[in-house]
């Protein structure tokens, strides 16, 4: 099925284009916009749409999509959870936080819970080292985590 943007999203795309001297520079912001409009993943149809809208080759757009970790090349759960595991967080117990998430969601990092609600991932340094351990849930940071805090967060997400 062909991908397209609604009126409001098309307006946002126009606004993005105004910020740059050429269309190519809008590639990443427009991919973000389209990914969100497409249920949080970049399908082949999204790549086709972006390449034709920005006058780029599909190969260029695909190259960009595959370079950056935040473009999902497969469908993901309703919510996305990233547990930071780089050194500062690891020193404060991120391994235990991740293990607890895996147990609660019944999936390993990289997978999605059976009910399709949460995709669990590990992340490399999210610039929150002073408030470690931390995780990102969709667009929000949760810091100074404890197992209890994680439990109540996951309760909300899987409700």
């Amino acid at each position, binding site marked *: 099925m062909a991908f397209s943007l609604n009126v409001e999203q098309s307006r946002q795309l126009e606004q993005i284009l105004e910020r740059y001297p050429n269309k190519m520079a809008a590639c990443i912001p427009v991919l973000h916009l389209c990914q969100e409009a497409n249920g949080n993943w970049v399908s082949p149809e999204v790549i086709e749409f972006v390449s034709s809208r920005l006058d780029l080759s599909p190969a260029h757009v695909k190259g960009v999509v595959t370079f950056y970790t*935040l473009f999902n090349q497969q469908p993901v759960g309703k919510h996305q959870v990233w547990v930071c595991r780089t050194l500062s967080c690891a020193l404060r117990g991120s391994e235990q936080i991740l293990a607890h998430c895996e147990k609660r969601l019944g999936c390993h990092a990289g997978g999605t819970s059976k009910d399709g609600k949460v995709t669990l991932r590990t992340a490399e340094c999210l610039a929150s*080292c002073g408030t470690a351990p931390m995780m990102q849930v969709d667009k929000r940071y949760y810091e100074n985590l404890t197992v209890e805090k994680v439990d109540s967060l996951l309760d909300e997400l899987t409700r």
Partner: protein
Amino acid sequence: MLKETTYLTHSFGKPDGYKLSAYEAAGGYAGVKQALSMTREAVVEEVKKAHVRGRGGAGFDAGTKWSFMPKQATKPCYLVINADEGEPGTFKDRAIMEQNPHSLVEGCIIGCYGIGAHAAYIYVRDELHLAKARLEGAIAEAKAKGYLGKTPFGKDYPVEIYVHTGAGAYICGEETSLLNSLEGRRGEPRLKPPFPAQYGAFGCPTTVNNVETIAIVPTVFDLGGDEFSKLSELHPFNDGGARLFGVSGHVKKPGLYEARVGLTLRELIYDLGGGVLGDRALIGVIPGGSSCPVHLPDEVVNVSDPRFAPYNGKSILDLPLGVDTFRMAGSMLGTCCAIVLSDAADPVLSLHNLMRFYKHESCGQCTPCREGCGWIERILDKIVAGEGSIEELDRIHDIASDITGNTICAFGDGAAQPALAFVRKYRKNFEDYVRTGGKSQTKRLTP
């Protein structure tokens, strides 16, 4: 010496501290008015006098960088702000953008004027959604007041600021990679020369500055360049002003603190950071983000430069944190954010953690880095599993040495440094893993 300041942190922790009203109540947007009343050349001179060393890791003098921009440009010029904060251990730029975004906006106006640009792009990593929202909000507030746009503060010098977003790649914190990413490409670093001041964003002259570097510029004009520089104990090293110091890992009070340049690691860990978690023994500290070499507490400073007379013979923990002090002592200041390791932390697992990071984040453009980071990680996999050999341990040194200096960008060196330092300084711990499977090691990172 510990002298705390609040130039950037005055708004931190206050519910409305990020708003224009709070920023102006604290004296904000005075520096830019001062700057716009001066000539462009005088602005650059003032920043040079302030000795603002780049806060993003390389420590290059900001005023000098600005002076590389063409005097009579034939193309548009750009200011690009590197807000792709992602160096493990570093969390200062995010705090500025979230809690004091107007300092960055004000700095951008001064920066644009100084380098002859009419547009600034702030490249924010995608994960920092709150930071992006706060910046967009601050830009809208400033625009509504006429501080941005066609005539900022009535001056006929148009300035626009745009927030651009990345998509999750540590390498985009490298300036040429950031420029490629800004242009809508894969974030692979470019060869230098040409340097961004000649051929940067969209093929035009560009200055790339770190968030904190630009955010502190208004303070330079509030105080005057000389006064700003003299705040610092390292004024004789041309390392001026005050800056943010982060401390994370095994300390009682991890977080962000602002102080005059001249603070030591001991003061950062014990005075500001509250000491080592659980009053354990300190076994190591990484001074400025994970790409800097780790230091043991008993390392002694020994540099022949006469300016080092007060510090020679002392522990590295008592050397003031400065760009040149640390460089000359064989280390790196980086982003000035320490990661503290207590004796609960297994140094072998610490390096294993870091090398996994570097392998994950290598962009793959240069063979030594792409393959080397993976090889080191795989050797460490074996060593941690108790299946490594002394020969392989030595090979880490060889691989890391072969990465150093053989890649397009500094990522390779940044990945090799921790490997070289950890293996050399914690050799006994690594050998214990090889010989006994790590019997006498903690085998964990948390206390």
